[in-house]
């Protein structure tokens, strides 16, 4: 059946229609209210549609989305694993949904227990000494983590000026460091794709507040020298921040706390299976070693005689990073995930994720260039080097994959691989889907030689053909307006 192209709701709106009705006002209305306050007659051009129109609108639009429930989504570094439905169900429990964040402690003991237990489980999983669940996403976790380091250094007398970040890092790392008031200096990767210890040593000084390192890094390579790296940074009084976005490769196998790192953030919407929702909400808990605990954001949760309390009186705290206690329902889902898997299930995540990734790597290494030969864990980064002679780039390969029913890999980083195709299969895929992806990639590699045009004009079967992103940025149209709509004179 044809998927109908869906109009904007504003284009189908018609005067007087509505999709929801409130009960009648049950108090005598006062006519004298807001006398000297500027009011509006109506919200100009706001949509007016019936309930069924809203339902069809969103249902049709849903058909224009790819998602993990539909198929393979090997978007590198994003850990697109299956989101267990039971986690959604428990998060919809009435008692969780209806509790007001300003409720007094004794009426929300269940919520506080959930937060505290999750903190404790994350401590055991990572080997860190304390956690805050407040950050709303990975990037906010990075910012909070860097603020903890800064607060501690300030107390020692000098916040320092520089943060070192490997050239393979995700873009949020330098951005978070900057937002925390630091200058960023890049550390080179060596020919193995890992941190160059010489370059690190050369750049490490008493001006350096921290090193932000992702492990395994964005190439999927474990930083085998992590303890030496930590030692170099610590020797000059700096801190090691570990970006835990790739924790899916390590869970149950190895703990960041044992790697002598001082701060780590996790992405509950990656490793811990909470759904991405088309771009959030996520959660970015931050774990620290003892020394940094006093600086954690307020409030923290304390258990005392079987009762949970919120503590606000924390003089060294960096303060508050967002309202209330973070994305609570996301934490509920992550806790359900951890409890449902147990120790064996958690270890199996890393084992199968790494197996799937290495199977793909082995199966495609003849067709696609791999810049680094080092062993990889949960993801691998191919490039378009073999296809470029035919005028084909990573974006063409990616868009052609859509025709084969697979979501494209990540292309925007790591910056040290030109034409990157970062593939992360996760542990939940079937061999059948993985093999279909491998076959599609091989077919595309043949097409690159024989019929490059079919790649360059891909996708051919999606809801829309290839979209012109340059024009969007040049001729900005960021909201509908009556004037710009030719249908609504």
């Amino acid at each position, binding site marked *: 059946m044809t998927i109908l192209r869906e109009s*904007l709701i504003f284009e189908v709106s018609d005067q*007087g229609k509505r999709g*929801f*009705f409130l009960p009648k006002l049950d108090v005598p209305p006062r006519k004298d*209210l807001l006398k000297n*306050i500027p009011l*509006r007659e109506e*919200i100009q051009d*706001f949509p007016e549609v019936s309930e069924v129109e809203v339902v069809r609108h*969103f*249902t049709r639009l849903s*058909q224009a989305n790819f998602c993990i429930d539909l198929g393979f989504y090997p978007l590198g570094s994003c850990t697109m694993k299956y989101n267990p439905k039971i986690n959604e*169900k428990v998060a919809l429990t*009435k008692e969780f*949904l209806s*509790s*007001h964040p300003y409720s007094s402690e004794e*009426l*929300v003991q*269940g919520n506080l227990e959930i937060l505290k237990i999750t903190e404790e489980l994350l401590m055991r999983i990572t080997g860190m000494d304390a956690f805050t669940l407040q950050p*709303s996403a990975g*990037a*906010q976790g990075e910012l909070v983590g860097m603020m903890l380091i800064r607060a501690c250094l300030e107390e020692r007398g000098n916040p320092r000026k520089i943060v070192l970040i490997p050239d393979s890092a995700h*873009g949020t790392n*330098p*951005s978070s460091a*900057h937002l925390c008031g630091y*200058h960023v200096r890049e550390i080179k990767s060596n020919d193995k794709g890992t941190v160059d210890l010489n370059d690190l040593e050369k750049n490490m000084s008493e001006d350096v507040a921290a090193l932000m390192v992702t492990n395994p890094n964005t190439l999927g390579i*474990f930083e085998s020298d*992590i303890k030496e790296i930590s030692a170099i940074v610590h020797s000059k009084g700096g801190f090691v921040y570990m970006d835990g976005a790739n924790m899916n490769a390590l869970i*149950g196998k190895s703990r960041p706390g044992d*790697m002598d790192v001082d701060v780590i953030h996790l992405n509950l919407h990656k490793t811990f299976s909470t759904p991405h*929702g*088309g*771009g*959030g909400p996520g959660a970015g808990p931050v774990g620290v070693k003892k020394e940094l605990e006093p600086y954690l954001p307020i409030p923290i949760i304390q258990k005392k005689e079987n009762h949970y309390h919120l503590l606000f009186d924390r003089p060294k705290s960096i303060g*508050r990073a*967002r309202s*209330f*206690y973070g994305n*609570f329902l996301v934490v509920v889902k992550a806790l359900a995930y951890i409890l449902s*898997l*147990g*120790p064996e*299930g958690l*270890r199996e995540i890393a084992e199968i994720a790494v*197996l799937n990734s290495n199977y793909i790597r082995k*199966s495609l290494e003849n067709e696609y260039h791999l810049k680094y030969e080092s062993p990889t864990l949960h993801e691998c980064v191919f490039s378009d080097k073999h296809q470029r002679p035919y005028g084909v780039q990573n974006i063409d390969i990616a868009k052609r994959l*859509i025709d084969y029913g697979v979501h494209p890999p990540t292309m*925007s980083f790591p910056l040290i691989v030109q034409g990157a195709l970062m593939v992360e299969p996760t542990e*939940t895929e079937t061999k059948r889907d993985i093999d279909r992806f491998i076959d599609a990639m091989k077919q595309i590699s043949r097409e690159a030689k024989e019929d490059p045009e079919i790649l360059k004009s891909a996708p051919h079967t*999606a809801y829309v053909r290839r*979209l*012109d992103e340059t*024009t*969007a*940025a040049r001729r*900005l149209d960021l909201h*509908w*307006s009556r004037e710009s709509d030719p249908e609504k004179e």
Partner: protein
Amino acid sequence: MSYTSLSQKDKKEMLTKIGISSIQKLFDSIPENLILKEGLNVPDHLAEPELVRHFDALARKNSFHKFLSFLGAGAYLHTIPSIVDYLSSRGEFISPYTPYQPEVSQGTLQIIYEFQTLICQLTGMDSANASLYDGASGAAEAVLMAHRIKSKPKVLVARTIHPQYREVIETYSKNLDVSLQDISYSKNGEIDLEDLEKKLGYETSAVVVQSPNFFGVIEKLKEVSDLAHRNQALSIAVITEPTSLGVLESPGQLGMDIVTGEGQSFGLPLSFGGPYLGFMACKKEFIRQVPGRIVGVTKDTEGERGFVLTLSTREQHIRRERATSNICTNQAWCALRATVFLEALGKKGMQELAWQNLQKAHYAMDRLTQLEGVHLKFDGAIFNEFVLQFEKSWKEIDKFLKDKGIIGGFGLERVFPELKNCALFCVTEVHRREDMDRLVSVLEEAVQ
């Protein structure tokens, strides 16, 4: 328990293809001394029925839902049309990633474009982003944005903004050469315009004001923004209760430069504080300084309309340390719920929603303030929240109400020590007349 999908045969075939004998081999790049020898010290797995029982037991330790509550203060109980839950729970909306590949994400992208349009219409602005974490971090991002635009050190913050927002602004700005200065409030609960005028100067980047403010009082945005502009500063409006925009003139029409706030009122349950929905809108000229994702219109190779993430040169994945913000994952699914909510209510529904909040809050306020020993603290115009001052101790009254199954207002003394025995009450369209009458009669007993 396991959510993996490989059979033993699959695993064997895959290991053979890789050319190794065991999965453990794949972890050889991790030094031996970093490999865990034992399983993690976490509880044994729970199957689905056990998990449900486990969470039911946790849920039973909550009792807030049994009370009749008049708490607001930045988190509001509103009606949620059933189609919001129904539509937003579709896998096509819950389980995609950020729409980096527009050709397979047109659903999410078009919805964000509609969300941006709705936010522009509500706020009276020319442009809006795809969402931020929450209202508090939105306010902090707005302060940093104004600071980037004006490059002047001082930002003036009304004492009447949500105290947690004030704290988050402080956390975000303290490492960045931004100095915050408070503007006091006047007797009627509004920002003190004289104090503002006095403190505004050539060093000021922006003025931050919330309306309705933390006391529920509607601020004079026009006067605030005029004063700011006269001093070459930007005006930032924070909205924690955006249902008010169904009746109040839009901040854009009143001259505000940036409008940011909390969209929880639009279809998101209270959920113990999150996930919520930060939004941000601004005048067109500032769009390149906006943080976060923005969706724009373009065409495909056949000339058909399509939607893409745009202006990404502002963002961390391109600009790295020079990005306008570090935000990456935001609250897209919450924005989708808000979009369903707003489109279902529509023009008439939003107007009526706001009207009912206004009327019901006034009904409750009028009756409560007739009681002996209960006074209206501020006489500025309010929307759906108001501050009462009691002659008796608020602590005792609060306890009395609780014993009778009512959560009264938010005790203000803990954040505003000068507001002795004052509490902020919130009434929305979900409160029936009998609920308010019950509050009145129990409170009457309480204050005696």
